[in-house]
């Protein structure tokens, strides 16, 4: 394996987050931190039924109620089928949603909206809205959705898709993909062992500190301004324009500081209705979901049931993989196709195999709606693959580390899956050009004490047992041939630069790492790069923060623009110095001559270019698209303690060894990894949606929906494996934000197996479930 070592001055350094001080001193402004004169407050009426028709809706009293300025129902809004998924155009999700509709399809679906002078007044008005529902048969079990006599959730004539995704709403089928590479039957024939099991992934909420929140108003020229907590400002502009029949140019979307997204804000969810209220009243309107509303009405991780069958030779070679998956997309098909595709495309290429079948169906139910959630289908897929790999290794009597080392994809290799499986169309073939997975496995194993503990914890006595387990992972970096990011850079007379990017910092630190890349290219300190991001009037386009794309994709746009600026600076300097460009170079905010030893400082160049001679603006705008989605790799190791008397699982140690190409800012990359791991541990052991028989979520709050907190943190070590520079990445970088949420469920499940011999395949691994599995094992 080639390893590269390049000395950088700003890249690879733990530069302080450029918005860190403002955020920690409360100066930085989130969406909700402004109050506009004459602002109204919006509240939404949510459906109490899982599936019902609105027979009559009477808002007379609500409209007359004190302080109320507008009440909207489906009768007041254009009926335009759309998807709430904030994806590129055309979206690969079915168009099956209306701003408001006369049918409600899950408990938490929107029924009406009120804007009033205060929240209390708006809430009072909600209580005065009289709705008569005709309750319909409902589907609460995805396995029932495809049955012959099942209720039809999307019987409206407008429901359709733009891309061919086998959309059959009459059968509750929101999307289907089926791909085959090689010869599956032959593959299974060649197998010495065939391993087969069923796995599931459950609902989960994103639990961002900041809920969905938006403020809309009309500016002095009557244009609609949307200030919103979003991951996708440019998609918000396009999609809201479509839904409200406005011109895109009539809308400006501004993204202030964001309190977390994790995918939930890749959803155009609250902007449309708030904008409609502003259009109706002419007044600024604020809409902010409460925590309960976040739980019942926003988006979730798509639950899946996966049947996985693998064939393997006695030497550990995989001969066939057959993955069959049923996904519950809930009442609407947001990301129904693409999350399902990702379950295959981010999981199946990791282990080499020629003969693969992947069949995925997403079905509608009258339950909460799935959406983008960190990991995006890969998290679900690794539950199956990560546990099954452990089962295979056990069957072969092979150490799991050797199994992975034998089978994982390497530099220079490809997988038929890359080409076969795209998003609503064929994928893009690619060769792996950087892979440090072996080093991740070795370093992780050493850190956790793998070989000693695998021996030591065998055949332990007493009710407290320990075990270690591991899993290997990959993800991607952006969506090839689809995603685009652009950057605009200009020079000021003091030698500072404005960097305007469409890229969307959600608290992730992308503003900082993009500044680091500009600094590196321009040989100037990070504090000379003034970053402004995500304002559709001011910054160039970017698809937004999703698909682990910002560093890899938008980073390249920043480097391209910086290089162009560098050329312009050199040209101006050569004019000023009377020397040829090829004799000049950049160093420390100056241009120097190799010949004369003379130098001009950036501030002299800036001043010269704007005021002295041949005046012009040194500036550049560049875009970047990618033809690849190079995967980062990781090996995760969990050490658990299982109390076989109470069923409680404690994660004692967790090692995440990650290879993400060059870590542009190692501290931030570590932060992403730690966050993802804790997020994943919480998902593995604790978080779950509990519904009653009518499809009502019983634990729609933080006291009953348990999320792990700081005291629950295990000893957590992140190892960033460095030196594997990705040739297509900015300064060799790949993505790091999503990959690590995929590890905890399989790593912990495998560790539990090692500790006490039970195969847990249906998370969350609650004490109840552990106890009943232990009982089953005894009998």
């Amino acid at each position: 394996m080639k390893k590269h070592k390049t000395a950088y001055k700003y890249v690879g350094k733990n530069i302080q987050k450029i918005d860190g001080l403002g955020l920690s001193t409360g100066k930085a402004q989130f969406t909700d931190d402004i109050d506009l004169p004459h602002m109204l407050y919006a509240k939404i009426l949510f459906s109490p039924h899982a599936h019902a028709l609105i027979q009559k809706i009477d808002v007379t009293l609500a409209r007359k109620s004190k302080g109320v300025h507008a009440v909207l129902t489906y009768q007041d809004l254009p009926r335009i089928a759309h998807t709430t998924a904030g994806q590129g155009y055309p979206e690969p999700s079915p168009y099956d949603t209306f701003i408001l509709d006369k049918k409600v399809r899950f408990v938490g679906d929107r029924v009406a909206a009120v804007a009033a002078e205060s929240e209390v007044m708006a809430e009072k008005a909600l209580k005065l809205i009289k709705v008569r529902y005709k309750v319909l048969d409902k589907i609460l079990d995805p396995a029932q959705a495809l049955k012959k006599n099942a209720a039809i959730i999307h019987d409206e004539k407008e429901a359709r898709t733009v891309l061919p995704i086998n959309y059959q709403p009459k059968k509750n089928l929101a999307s289907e993909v089926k791909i085959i590479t090689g010869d599956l039957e032959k593959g299974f024939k060649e197998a010495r062992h065939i391993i087969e099991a069923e796995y599931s992934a459950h609902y989960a909420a994103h639990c961002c500190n900041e809920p969905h929140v938006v403020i809309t108003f009309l500016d002095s020229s009557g244009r609609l301004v949307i200030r919103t907590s979003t991951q996708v400002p440019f998609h918000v502009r396009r999609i809201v324009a479509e839904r409200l029949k406005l011109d895109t140019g009539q809308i400006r979307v501004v993204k202030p500081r964001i309190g977390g997204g994790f995918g939930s804000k890749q959803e155009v969810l609250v902007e449309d209705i708030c904008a409609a209220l502003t259009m109706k009243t002419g007044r600024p309107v604020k809409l902010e979901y409460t925590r309960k509303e976040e739980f019942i009405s926003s988006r979730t991780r798509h639950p899946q049931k996966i049947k996985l069958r693998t064939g393997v030779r006695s030497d550990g070679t995989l001969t066939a993989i057959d993955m069959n998956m049923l996904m519950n997309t809930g009442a609407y098909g947001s990301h129904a196709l693409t999350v399902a595709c990702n379950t295959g495309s981010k999981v199946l290429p990791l282990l080499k195999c020629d003969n693969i079948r992947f069949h995925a169906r997403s079905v509608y139910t009258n339950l909460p709606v799935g959406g983008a959630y960190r990991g995006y289908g890969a998290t679900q897929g690794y539950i199956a693959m990560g546990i099954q790999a452990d089962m295979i290794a056990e069957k072969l009597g092979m150490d799991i580390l050797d199994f992975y080392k034998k089978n994982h994809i390497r530099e220079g290799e490809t997988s038929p899956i890359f080409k076969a499986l795209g998003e609503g169309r064929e994928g893009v073939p690619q060769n792996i050009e950087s892979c440090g997975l072996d080093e991740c496995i070795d370093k992780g194993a050493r850190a956790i004490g793998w070989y000693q503990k695998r021996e030591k914890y065998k055949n332990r006595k007493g009710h407290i047992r320990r075990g270690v387990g591991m899993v290997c992972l990959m993800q991607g970096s952006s969506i090839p041939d689809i995603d685009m990011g652009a950057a605009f850079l200009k020079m000021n007379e003091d030698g500072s630069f404005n960097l305007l990017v469409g890229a969307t910092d959600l608290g992730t630190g992308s503003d900082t790492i993009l500044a680091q890349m500009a600094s590196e290219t321009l040989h100037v300190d990070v504090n000379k790069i003034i970053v402004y991001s995500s304002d559709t009037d001011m910054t160039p386009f970017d698809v937004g923060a999703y698909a682990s794309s910002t560093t890899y994709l938008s980073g390249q746009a920043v480097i391209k623009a910086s290089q162009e600026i560098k050329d312009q600076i050199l040209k101006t300097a050569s004019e000023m110095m009377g020397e040829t460009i090829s004799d000049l170079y950049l160093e420390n905010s100056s241009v120097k001559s190799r010949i004369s030893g003379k130098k001009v400082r950036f501030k002299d160049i800036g001043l010269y270019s704007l005021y002295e001679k041949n005046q012009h603006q040194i500036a550049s705008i560049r875009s970047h698209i990618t033809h690849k989605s190079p995967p980062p790799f990781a090996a995760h190791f969990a050490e658990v303690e299982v109390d076989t008397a109470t069923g409680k699982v404690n994660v004692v140690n967790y090692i995440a060894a990650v290879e993400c190409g060059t870590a542009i800012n190692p501290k931030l990359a570590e932060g992403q990894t730690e966050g993802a791991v804790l997020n994943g541990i919480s998902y593995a052991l604790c978080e779950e949606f509990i519904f009653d028989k009518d499809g009502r979520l019983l634990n729609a709050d933080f006291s009953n929906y348990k999320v792990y907190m700081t005291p629950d943190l295990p000893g957590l070590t992140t190892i960033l494996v460095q030196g594997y520079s990705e040739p297509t990445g900015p300064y060799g970088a790949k993505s790091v934000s999503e990959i690590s949420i995929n590890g905890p469920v399989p790593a912990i499940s495998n560790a539990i197996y090692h500790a006490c011999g039970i195969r847990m395949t249906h998370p969350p691994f609650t004490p109840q479930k552990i106890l009943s599995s232990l009982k089953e094992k005894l009998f």
Partner: protein
Amino acid sequence: MEFLKITTLTQIISEVPKIKNRIYYLAGGTDLFVKIKEGSIQENAMIIDISDLKELKSIKETPAEIIIGALTPFSQIAHSFVINFHAPLLCQAAKSVGSLQIRNRGTLGGNIANASPAGDSLPALFVHDAIIVTLKRRISVHDFFINAKKTVLENGEIIKEIIIPKINMKKKAFFYKSAPREALALSKASLAVLAMVKNKKLEDIKIAAGAVGPTVIRTLRTEQFILRNQINSDVIAKAKNIMISEICPITDICSTDQYRREIIKFYLEEALRNLP
């Protein structure tokens, strides 16, 4: 909702009898504010803020008793030397409540008056035969709770203090609580066991279980069975079965009834095995 702030007991005595509305005391507010937010407090209720009523915030000691002011927050109880000496179970229980923030606000009186079967201080109070003192009467903790969230307190009757009789014998105490995460989690089940030992002989044992019935349950039959027998594996197995017949857990979003039984059995076994 009306609001009144009172800072002395004399004011309580003079003002409260005049109030006809349903009265809610605001002590730490950690239960009350949740209820207000849920909308389960009547429109015409009277909220009386007693959080600055200093007279009810002390821990005192007499030769025979410990007297804990109703407004003493859990963080103070958790770190009280006196309580730890005479009723270590209560310290342990106090330490397990909520999080540091909740322990700084939440009071013992509030925990009792709120009457949740999962109230963490209650099993400890049961095994110590605590006495709850209001302005007009003394009530044994065993007579105090009627049902889940229901007590014998009349409207406006305020808890002044909680008395824990001292036990002048060698004690062994065990408190177990099952919760889904380290902090801020209600008990799925809890068990307090207090054993009195004299010359290495078990003189008395008191057992109370939380979150496995509408109120905390003192399991007298189990206690008597244990006292009548020499502890061995067989007796432990039988004791567990008797214990199960004395509790009546339900299935709710915190846990299944079956899991609650399993966990209580395990806790009892743990305690009994560690007794000698």
